[in-house]
């Protein structure tokens, strides 16, 4: 694969969830095609339930598409070689509560195949970078949501990934931590890392992303470069998805 090739490609991908009797329950993603280019920050936006996380999980090989094709670095997402090159921050910080922050990073360093010495050094750097050095030997089960988020972010970065997949990266963070995460993502992107992120916070996406796709009902409602929208992302989003949402507040407010 050369430097100009797409890192992630989805071609007419569908995902239908089924119940125990294999009856279809939800069409989470419906004929979605997209590509993420090397070195760009790509945002997958949309309201809750629009299929963002399902799409991410298909890209990571955690979910199998019902139809269509997903490729990661030109390989199957289930391929070990493809996953060696990615880092993942899930929407919720899934961490083993019995491990300390340092052990958590060493665990993921081991999963990335880092040698022991390199893993320890990398864990030390990331603990320092995320401001967790002082609590490195405390079990993460007792951490606040924001601290757990930092550990999860450090875990995603420990293998020096080429592609960083962030599912709602600022979820549960206070404004200062949110700003720090955005600064970090920008710094990583300027260093050449490809970033694929989902968010329903338009301000976050507008600050970080080069290109966005808006999902609605599992389909692509719009796609474009942030600097070519000609309007604010919020106005663009509302024009494409509508502002009705799931809530109809007007009768209550009046």
């Amino acid at each position, binding site marked *: 694969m050369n430097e100009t090739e797409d890192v992630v490609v989805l071609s007419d991908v569908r995902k239908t969830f089924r119940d125990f009797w294999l009856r279809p329950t939800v069409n989470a993603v419906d004929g979605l095609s997209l590509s993420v280019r090397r070195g760009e920050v790509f945002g997958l936006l949309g309201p809750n339930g629009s299929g963002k996380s399902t799409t991410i999980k298909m890209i990571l090989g955690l*979910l199998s598409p019902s139809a269509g094709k997903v490729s990661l670095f030109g390989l199957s997402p289930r391929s070990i070689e493809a996953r060696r090159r990615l880092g993942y921050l*899930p929407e919720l910080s899934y961490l083993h509560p*019995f491990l300390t922050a340092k052990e958590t990073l060493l665990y993921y360093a081991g*999963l990335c195949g880092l040698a022991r010495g390199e893993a320890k050094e990398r864990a030390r750097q990331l603990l320092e970078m995320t401001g967790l050095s002082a609590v490195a030997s405390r079990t993460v089960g007792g951490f606040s949501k924001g601290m757990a988020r930092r550990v999860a972010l450090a875990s995603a970065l420990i293998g020096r990934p080429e592609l960083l997949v962030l599912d709602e990266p600022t979820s549960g963070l206070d404004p200062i931590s949110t700003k720090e995460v955005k600064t970090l993502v920008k710094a990583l992107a300027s260093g050449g890392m490809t970033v694929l992120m989902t968010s329903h916070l338009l301000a976050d996406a507008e600050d970080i992303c080069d290109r966005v796709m808006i999902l609605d009902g599992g389909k692509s409602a719009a796609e474009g470069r942030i600097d070519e929208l000609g309007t604010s992302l919020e106005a663009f989003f509302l024009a494409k998805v509508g502002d009705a949402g799931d809530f109809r507040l007007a009768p209550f407010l009046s």
Partner: protein
Amino acid sequence: MRSFASVVKATALEVLSEPLTLLVLLAALALSVLAPTFHYHQFGEATRMARDSGFSALFVCGTVVSVFGTIRAFRREIESGTIQMALAHPISRGGFFLAKALGAFAAYLVFAATVLCTALDVIEGARIGGVIAARTGDIARLYGPCLAAGVAVMLVPLVVGAVLNRFLRFRFVLSSMTTAFVLSLVAAGACAALDRGLLPRHLPPAALLVVLAAVFLSASAALAVRFRANAAAAGAGALFALFLPFVGNYYMSDALANGGSVHWGYVGLAALAAAPAALAFLVVGMRFIGERDVS
């Protein structure tokens, strides 16, 4: 390989950090140490009583730890979502499943070694107590130092765990489990120095129980990937009930009671017989995890 080892280590730590594992260990140690000390039901066979209690504790409590420890390790990984983080890394699904099962087995081995070593200490205590009783005409009792060592293996780890947790923030359960393991090894080592035949006689039957636990553990792992915890536990329980009538063949307590032991060749045959079952369960488990959507 490094990623495989990483999952093995984390899973072993997880099972050994479980409060349930420590509680079951304390119950097993209490059964091993305290049951033979009540002389009114020894019927003149203190050593046999000590051996039966120890091996029963190893069998029953070991099965509980191997089954529930494994089910909890897998279900928590799936239900808490940590499996998503793990499988987004360069490890195959089959490799991840095997590594978790191996980690649970490693934790079981630590548990089993602690119970067995304590049982050996008590068995030796009963033997020496019987020798003293024969010389003095008294009722056979556990030899004091061995009884003290057995009680220490039960109680000292709790104190050490509490102190390490209070002053150094070490994990209480893990510290207690580790201390119990080390103390029991020291006690059994001292007893083995007193009686050279202690280990050669008791290791083969203990190995049979480990073989049996490996089968239950692999079945539990496969069930836990496909079904919820309660259903997986029910499945493992049904398998245990099917096996139970044949456990007498594994136990071989008569051979031990008559001063002999189980031949290592018999252990090898049992392992050969158990291997296809364990492998079949592991293959089924790998297939289950390969097919499932992780979300």
